[in-house]
């Protein structure tokens, strides 16, 4: 680490990428916030902002060390939490990781942790106690995200000598977090929706998105931020970043078209919510694969993800699980599609692109391991919080509106604005 010279081009791009990735938090808040009813939009948005705050604090204290510290016992399960406790030795202007300042790498990766936790909130709209969500966010980040990110993102001899088992021992490819971020959050969202139960009136009353323009804006901001997420994961200003950026557009537009096509055939209408959802499904699916495939591979992955995610949104009704904003259908399904498809269309490694079945099997093992661990661990964490401080608001709070009852605010002045608002 000491001999490495900090490269100004790499550093500039990673500074920008960190800003882009941070924009994904309000992007997600708008994307989710627009999809819920008027009475709970603020709570929905607060869950994203709250997750960012609590997770990044933990990231500085111990999270970075658990992810990027030397693997305890060398078995690739969890990094040494004491090695970089409070970013020991790294939070100064001279420390470097790769060719960029350590501070930039730490900030960039810290937002990944925050966004992963924020993604989960989509499955528990309208009905989770805000304080309990914050406790969940802290515990989940510590016990699930940090170890899983160590498995996937900690390469040997990059930050520390020994890294995680998926990255080094198994050798599954996950460039920007199809497993650690999206399968992880999707499986957790499923578990938490099961623990929390259905919303009052689910499937009986209309739970329409209150503002589709907000959803579209949120999807657009997520897309913009995702350039930092994917191309920034090159940790350098180079050709890999360029390829990741190109694929982050190709897969996303293919997914948008595929989602709309499914809707047109199935429901008779191509909807704006479908377009926004297709965008996010494509972004999710290309996340692990954006540096492992060529442009046609990206189109295939995007189209497949758009179609499969669109077809998966109905599953929750069949299973009776109120995954309110389809975290499972978009992030779990999209994450699996992208991760597994590397083994099919990945350049030199994919089954149909010069490789055998070897990489495909590695990809399936990596995806399955993260899915299984996240689902079971989240069930346990969610159950424990529910039985101690309670996870769900009362029926009265839920029906009258979580914004008003829990946050003492309402999102909009819901009266005629012609005279500057109501005097009622």
């Amino acid at each position, binding site marked *: 680490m000491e001999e490495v010279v900090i490269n100004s081009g790499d550093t500039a791009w990673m500074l920008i990428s960190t800003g882009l990735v941070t924009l994904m938090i309000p992007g997600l808040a708008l994307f989710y916030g627009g999809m819920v009813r008027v009475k709970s939009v603020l709570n929905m948005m607060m869950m994203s902002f709250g997750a960012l705050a609590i997770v990044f604090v933990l990231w500085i204290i111990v999270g970075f060390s658990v992810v990027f510290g030397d693997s305890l016992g060398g078995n690739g399960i969890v990094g040494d939490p004491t090695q970089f406790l409070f970013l020991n030795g790294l939070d100064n202007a001279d420390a470097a990781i790769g060719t960029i300042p350590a501070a930039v790498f730490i900030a960039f990766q810290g937002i990944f942790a925050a966004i992963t936790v924020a993604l989960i909130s989509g499955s528990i709209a309208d009905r989770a106690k805000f304080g309990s969500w914050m406790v969940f966010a802290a515990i989940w980040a510590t016990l699930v995200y940090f170890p899983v990110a160590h498995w996937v993102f900690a390469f040997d001899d990059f930050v520390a000598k020994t890294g995680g088992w998926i990255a080094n021992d198994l050798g599954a490819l996950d460039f920007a977090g199809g497993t650690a971020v999206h399968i992880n959050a999707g499986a957790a969202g499923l578990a938490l929706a099961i623990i929390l139960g259905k919303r009052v009136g689910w499937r009986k009353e*209309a*739970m*329409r*998105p209150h503002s589709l323009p907000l959803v579209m804006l949120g999807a657009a901001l997520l897309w913009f931020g995702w350039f930092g997420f994917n191309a920034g994961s090159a940790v350098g200003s180079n050709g890999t970043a360029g390829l990741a950026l190109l694929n982050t557009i190709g897969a996303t537009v293919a997914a948008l078209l595929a989602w709309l096509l499914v*809707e047109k055939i*199935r*429901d*008779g*209408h191509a*909807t704006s*919510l*479908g377009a926004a*959802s297709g965008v996010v499904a494509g972004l999710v699916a290309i996340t692990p694969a954006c540096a492992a495939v060529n442009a046609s591979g990206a189109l295939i992955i995007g189209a497949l993800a758009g179609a499969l995610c*669109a077809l998966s*949104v*109905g599953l929750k*009704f069949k299973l009776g699980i109120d995954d309110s904003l*389809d975290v499972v259908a978009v992030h779990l399904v999209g994450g699996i599609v992208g991760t597994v498809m590397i083994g099919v269309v990945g350049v030199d490694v994919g089954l149909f692109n010069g490789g055998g079945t070897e990489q495909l099997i590695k990809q399936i093992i990596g995806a399955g391991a993260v899915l299984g661990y996240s689902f079971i661990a989240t069930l346990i964490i969610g159950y424990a919080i529910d039985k101690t401080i309670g996870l769900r608001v009362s029926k009265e709070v839920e029906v009258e509106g979580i914004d008003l009852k829990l946050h003492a605010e309402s999102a909009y002045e819901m009266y005629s604005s012609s005279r500057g608002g109501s005097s009622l």
Partner: protein
Amino acid sequence: MKLITAIIKPFKLEDVKEALTAFGITGMTVSEASGFGRQGGHTEVYRGAEYTVDLIPKIRLEVLVDSNDAEKVIDVIVKAASTGAIGDGKVWSSPVDNIVRVRTGERGTDAI
């Protein structure tokens, strides 16, 4: 004295207002309303989930008139609000005991 209440399609408000003004009506109260009748509701689809929306937006228009004018005013409204299609709305009249103009304290038909 009568209170004429009309539930009409929102896009017909301008026509009805003009017709009533032409007839000589000098005041009315208009509010947004929602409801359903024979027209029923409509369906919307979000991520493949179909929602039946029962309540359709309508305009509720209220006019106070002299009893002698009531039938004529109803005719004016019905003529202006009609499209011939389902969901055109309803008009009804109800008796009013008294009316007071707040500014002057005038009562009864003088306050119309």
